[in-house]
């Protein structure tokens, strides 16, 4: 162990003397720079001399303290004399002065209220809306070129994304669907039993799954699973300048990157939805049987309740959800900044927006279905 670092300020007739004693090493935790400079500022003398006669070992802490003292002297119009400070420390001090400090250009940013009055949130919202329309337009144009067979989309990519979004998602969709079917059955069972109408649990589960829960739950799963993955993939490509490379090769990133991803989701989502319908209804069966509804009665009830129109309403929803998830995920990725933090933000934005849009779209669908009477 070394001697503890200390300092002492003597305000004499011949000027101020700053005496540094002991080992000024970072691991010895020397006195804070604020303490040193504060006691310097109280002095009346107009000249500071550093006295290092009792100084032991030293490292950067000494240099940074000296640097702070010099700045404090400059502030209070005091002369700074490094005195017998170690030669190495003075050389380091000089090296740190070699480049003049940079002054950050001041950007005038008005206060929050002024910005609010100037309509900044509205402008930002409109900008965002225009950008979203722009993106949607580009996607539509790309789809048009795809139909004409002129889009630069690789079939391999499409198949790869279908594989990722479809078969690889079956496990989680299975688990969630069966559980949601059971939850629906439990939800209805208590009420229906009071009326002695347990038999209708089949209708409840079947209609609930087919019209509402299957598209919504697969949507939420795919938003968290695939939408987030798209945002992270494209965001990382943006940080690694891969998207720039695609653009400068004369290929539209929308056609090459966004289209296969969105198409894959749109193709896969209805299938996942129907798969989820079936599993949800099966998931409700054990609960119904526990209420003395037989397997046959349950299946017959479900079969009678569900018509092709019901299935179509759910599938239509899932198609729209696929579009929304793909679009929000890809857009967040394409617009991603160029740092690792930006990729994280893009992923968050993708998932949150996708889920918000899912719920809004679901509500809209239900209103329309209600009006149409289907």
């Amino acid at each position: 162990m070394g001697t503890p670092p200390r300092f002492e300020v003597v305000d004499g007739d011949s000027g101020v003397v700053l005496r540094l004693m002991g080992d000024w090493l970072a691991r010895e935790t020397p006195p804070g720079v604020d303490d040193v400079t504060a006691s310097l500022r109280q002095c009346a003398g107009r000249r500071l001399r550093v006295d290092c006669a009792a100084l032991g070992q030293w490292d950067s802490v000494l240099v940074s303290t000296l640097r702070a003292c010099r700045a404090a002297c400059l502030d209070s119009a005091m002369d700074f004399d490094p005195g017998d400070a170690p030669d190495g420390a003075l050389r380091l001090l000089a090296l740190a002065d070699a480049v003049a400090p940079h002054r950050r250009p001041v950007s005038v940013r008005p206060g929050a209220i002024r910005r609010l009055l100037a309509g900044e949130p509205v402008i930002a919202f409109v900008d965002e809306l225009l950008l979203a329309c722009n993106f949607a337009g580009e996607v539509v144009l790309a789809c048009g070129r795809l139909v004409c067979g002129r889009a630069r989309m690789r079939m391999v990519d499409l198949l790869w994304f279908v594989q990722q979004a479809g078969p690889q998602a079956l496990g989680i969709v299975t688990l969630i669907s069966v559980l949601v079917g059971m939850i629906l059955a439990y939800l209805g069972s208590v009420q229906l039993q009071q009326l002695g109408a347990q038999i209708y649990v089949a209708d409840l589960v079947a209609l609930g799954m087919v019209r509402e829960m299957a598209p919504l739950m697969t949507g939420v799963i795919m938003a968290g699973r695939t939408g987030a993955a798209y945002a992270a993939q494209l965001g990382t490509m943006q940080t690694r300048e891969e998207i720039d490379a695609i653009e400068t090769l004369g290929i539209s990133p929308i056609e090459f990157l966004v289209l296969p991803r969105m198409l894959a989701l749109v193709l896969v989502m209805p299938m996942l939805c129907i798969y989820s319908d079936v599993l949800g209804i099966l998931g409700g069966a054990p609960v119904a049987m526990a209420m003395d509804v037989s397997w046959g009665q349950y299946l017959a009830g479900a079969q009678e309740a569900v018509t092709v129109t019901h299935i179509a309403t759910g599938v239509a929803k899932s198609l729209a959800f696929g579009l929304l998830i793909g679009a929000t995920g890809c857009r967040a990725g394409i617009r991603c900044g160029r740092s690792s933090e930006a990729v994280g933000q893009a992923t968050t934005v993708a998932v949150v927006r996708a889920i918000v849009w899912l719920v809004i779209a679901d509500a809209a669908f239900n209103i329309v279905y209600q009006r149409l009477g289907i």
Partner: protein
Amino acid sequence: MDSAREHIRVAGLEMRYGTRVIQSGLDFTVARGDIFVIMGGSGCGKSTLLKHMIGLYEPVAGEVFYNGVSYQDSGVDARAAMRRRWGITYQAGGLFSAMTLAENVALPLTQYTSLDVASVREMVSYKLALVGLAGFEEYYPSEISGGMQKRAGLARAIALDPEILFFDEPSAGLDPVSSRLLDELIMQMRDVLGVTVVIVTHELASIFAIASNSVYLDAETRTMLDTGSPRELLRSSPHAAVRRFLARGDATAPAGP
């Protein structure tokens, strides 16, 4: 070399990725205060050797000694203590993009010392000034150029006054002027702070400008061919490949003693 000047010794090191041998039979010594260059063609394992030296990878065989103590034989605490005496700058800077430059440099200081907030701030300002970035405290890494990011990485590496500075391709992606400024900075650090510097590079200009010692790794034979001062090696290495590398592929480089 007498043992008082020996700082790092690599003994019988063998590196592999899975079953693929990258380099084997590496034996060399770095003296205190050396600027030691690890050189060789692309893909010969330069960066991999650096990562073995700083303990990111475990060697298949052999050891690396720091001040005569084997890193591989040391326990977790001893290893951490050794690592604390090193400063490492990575190829792309390795700065944390979610933190300002000041926060980046302050991180090791707040983790390993008990300096108060004002002292840390003053240290950070001094370290940034040392690498020529005074006044850039509040910038995020994405707001500054590649050369500045490397210098900011260096400021973080020297935050704790390391004994050894490791650089992975310091001049990759820098223009000749910035790269020379960085070289000069490395020399000044060595002269003033008295640190030992280990650099991975294939920039000949900077090898001849700053290196006092070096090792040449060969991609063909998967071992080191020669070690010594690059100027000496260019003049009198017994291996044609080393002379050719240092003469930028000029096969008529002087041979023999």
